[in-house]
């Protein structure tokens, strides 16, 4: 981006709530059903049917509100947002407008350079999702599948406090982590369970007034959020610098071409004619209900990370990585519990070797082929000196592929470290005898050859020698009698 410009971004995140049934009907919310198999009379907007609010959706919204330190409204109101679109069966979306269920919270984000930032959450409100339009294979027609219609959504609206695409991604990841911790959203972005609209504007550095914003719709991956914002900022700056003006509009991110473009269907200015939904009385939450929800809140990522730093001596960064999902944090603590200590060793292995294997096989921590107890069994053998870290990597891979415990693999493959001093001394003597030239040079002052001898000893022991012990013995024996 050209210097001298400031970017202002606000995100509207749509998190599908993980209820069994829809927000206003008893139809299932499962993903992937045949078209319209999960669209009941209420979802289809049949004449005469009425919405009845799902208690669990309310409870989930309250969980979110409490988790971000927001105000949970004792009285909130459902409103109708009126517009015509084929994926919107009633011609209006039931949403919340003037009185949302959650308002005024905040979340903290940590940028890559370690900077901490608080991002305000203006509001979070309950609403129903729309259906889907399908264009493939129908020629000049569009097919409408209303299975998704009526799925509960929590729309989480940030303050326009994000200043870069990276801020935006960090914030979105933070919310993503949070909703999964809370168990209110599965966070599956490919299935559209977690997606966002980004409001982007630019202004001259130091300007007080906000620039004209564009809304980029339906971003369903962190990468797209970053790319779309990046592109959009560049477009706006270029436009203004070229003497043009940004027009307030809705844009779509074309991921194939990496550009945003104006949405034709949203060209005309909408007049949504919001008004309170007369089919739904105000939602009144008794303090007892809110307190009951509060009592069931899990330890939240920030709290957990702070505890990891405090109790386990981890860095902020490591604590952040390990608490990015509840499952990962549980795994880490599971290993630690079995092992009974060495929090840094555990952190390094979970974030390093284990993460590498998960990544290689495209698995989440929940799908790890080595469980927390299994990894603890392996790390125990490092800390008691049975195997070296290097051998341990080989053992972990074998555990991963063969599904056996660390000890079984160490035994079966004879990987136990050689710690018998006399056996090692004998090997070193042989190595020295086999390499008289190098020995001479070393003794003549070529210190760099020390590494050569380490390598030879390790080779002769098939890596099973304890490296620290090898170092110590070599240093003494190479020095000469």
């Amino acid at each position, binding site marked *: 981006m050209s210097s001298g410009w400031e970017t202002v971004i606000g995100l509207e995140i749509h998190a599908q709530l993980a209820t069994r049934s829809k927000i206003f009907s008893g139809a299932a919310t499962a993903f992937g059903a045949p078209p319209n198999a999960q669209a009941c009379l209420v979802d289809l907007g049949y004449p*005469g049917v009425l919405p009845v609010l799902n208690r669990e959706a309310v409870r989930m919204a309250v969980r979110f509100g409490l988790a971000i330190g927001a105000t949970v409204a004792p009285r909130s109101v459902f409103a109708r947002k009126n517009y015509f679109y084929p994926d919107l069966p009633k011609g209006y979306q039931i949403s919340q407008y003037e009185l949302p269920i959650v308002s005024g919270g905040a979340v903290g984000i940590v940028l890559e350079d370690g900077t901490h930032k608080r991002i305000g959450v203006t509001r979070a409100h309950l609403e129903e999702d729309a259906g889907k339009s399908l264009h493939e294979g129908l020629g000049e027609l569009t097919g409408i599948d209303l299975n998704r219609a009526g799925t509960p959504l929590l729309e989480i609206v940030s303050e326009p406090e994000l200043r870069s695409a990276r801020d935006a991604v960090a914030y979105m990841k933070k919310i993503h982590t949070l909703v999964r911790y809370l168990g209110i959203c599965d966070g599956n972005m490919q299935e559209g369970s977690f997606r966002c609209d980004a409001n982007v504007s630019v202004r001259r550095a130091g300007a007080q007034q906000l620039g004209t914003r564009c809304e980029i719709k339906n971003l369903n991956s962190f990468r797209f959020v970053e790319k779309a914002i990046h592109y959009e900022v560049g477009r706006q700056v270029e436009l203004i610098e070229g003497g043009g003006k940004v027009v307030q509009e809705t844009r779509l991110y074309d991921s194939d071409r990496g550009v945003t473009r104006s949405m034709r269907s949203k060209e005309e200015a909408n007049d949504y004619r919001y008004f309170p939904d007369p089919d739904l009385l105000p939602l009144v939450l008794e303090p007892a209900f809110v307190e009951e929800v509060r009592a069931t809140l899990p330890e939240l990522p920030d709290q957990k990370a702070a505890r990891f730093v405090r109790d386990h001596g981890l860095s902020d960064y490591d604590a952040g990585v390990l608490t990015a999902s509840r499952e990962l944090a549980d795994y880490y603590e599971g290993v630690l519990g079995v092992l009974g200590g060495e929090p840094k060793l555990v952190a390094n292995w979970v974030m390093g070797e284990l993460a590498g294997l998960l990544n290689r096989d495209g698995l989440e921590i929940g799908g790890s082929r080595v469980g927390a107890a299994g990894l603890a069994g392996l790390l125990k053998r490092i800390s008691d000196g049975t195997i070296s870290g290097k051998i341990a990597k080989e053992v972990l891979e074998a555990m991963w592929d063969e599904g056996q415990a660390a000890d079984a693999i160490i035994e079966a493959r004879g990987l136990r470290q050689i710690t018998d001093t006399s056996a090692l001394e004998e090997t070193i003597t042989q190595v020295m005898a086999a390499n008289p030239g190098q020995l001479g040079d070393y003794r003549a002052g070529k210190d760099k050859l020390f590494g050569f001898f380490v390598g030879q000893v390790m080779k002769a022991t098939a890596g099973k020698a304890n490296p620290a012990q090898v170092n110590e013995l070599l240093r003494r024996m190479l020095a000469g009698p």
Partner: protein
Amino acid sequence: MKLHELTVAELGRGLREREFTSVELTRHYLARIASGNAALNAFITVTAERALADAAAADQRLARGEGGLLTGVPLAHKDIFCTDGVLTTCGSRMLAKFVAPYDATVVERLAAAGMVLLGKTNMDEFAMGSSNETSWFGPVRNPWDLARVPGGSSGGSAAVVAAGLAPVATGTDTGGSIRQPAALCGLTGLKPTYGRVSRYGMIAFASSLDQGGVLARSALDAALLLAAMAGPDPRDSTCIERPVSDYAAGLDRPIRGLRIGIIREFFGPGLEAGTGAAVQAALDGFRKLGAELVEVSLPNLPLSVPTYYVVAPAECSSNLSRFDGVRFGHRCEEPRDLRDLYERSRGEGFGAEVKRRIMTGTYVLSAGYYDAYYLKAQQVRSLINADFRRAFAEVDVLMGPTSPTPAFALGAKTDDPITMYLNDIYTIGANLAGLPAISVPCGLVGGLPVGLQVIGSHFAEELLLAVAHAWQRETDWHGRRPPEPVRGAP
């Protein structure tokens, strides 16, 4: 005694005592419909086969000594109630071919009580009208005078009960649509408290005002039907969790000492003289029965019609957006594009009055006008509600005319919407405040029925029915029938 002259209560007794069977009774009514409906145009659909099957099933129940007070008694439903497997049109071209895939709660409950469905009655399109002249299926005629309207929007239900084509019928009341046709056809018409009867399956006009109810020959019949229809429904969260009384059992409570408030604002210049005199005579009658009459003023009540004509169109503009030619209902031929599909399907499917109200509602909710119209109307609604609340702190019930005039001639008011809207000047207030109200026959003017309206506080149905019943014990206006035969009737 002819079968069609018996009340629901009498029919129920006759059926249980096996004086006649439900099949005989149903055949009798189907015969009357076959000859009488052509002149009235009161039924959109006659469900003869289903009726006879329902009746046979009811007879079996009765023969086993099962069934209740309503088992085997025929009825007609306003064509606004979705009825599984039966054409449900709402009086509109939009739904002219719509066979509902489910039963409204009211339909389900009355069927479960063993009632026999004769058919679905004509109505103003989407219940928008006060004369039954906006129906896609043509106007309904008043059995008291075929040149006159039966009132609306439940005009078909009123006409069939008044003409003896059904012993009782359901209706809905958004601004007077049960009470006004009941008044114009000489019936007892009850609009319950908002939230007393489930709205599930009742095609919505204005959701904060709509309420299902009964058009009957007597307060007792209305009480029997209400008890079977009312009560909480898990499918309508605006339907209130509150037990249902045995309304029939409560009818005999004495009205001596009852404090009746006479609404001053209902006796102004718009009230036709003969109607005013009949209502005044009824009020005197109540005084003779030992009630105490006091004049009360509800100063904001005259604003109820303009308030209604903001609130109701606003809600209807949104409620009727679902009729878009995609999932059900009328779809235009060969739409060029999406916009054309919407605009032509809706333009063709809705009649002029419905379009007028959708546009009024769209306008009052649109950016820049919301505060001046919609919000203002909601505030005035608050004032009207407060007026009622104050009045009910002083009196037990409120009384006044139901309609400013008796039945008027077909076509007399179709040119000017405002003139038509003012027919509901006395009935709309109860809808805005969600109050129960009943219209009972209280006289004839020029051979046409006049209705007395009684309004109660929330959930005071039992009292309203008792007041109506007390009146009907002393008078026989409710027993008067239009001239027989209805042209062509047996």
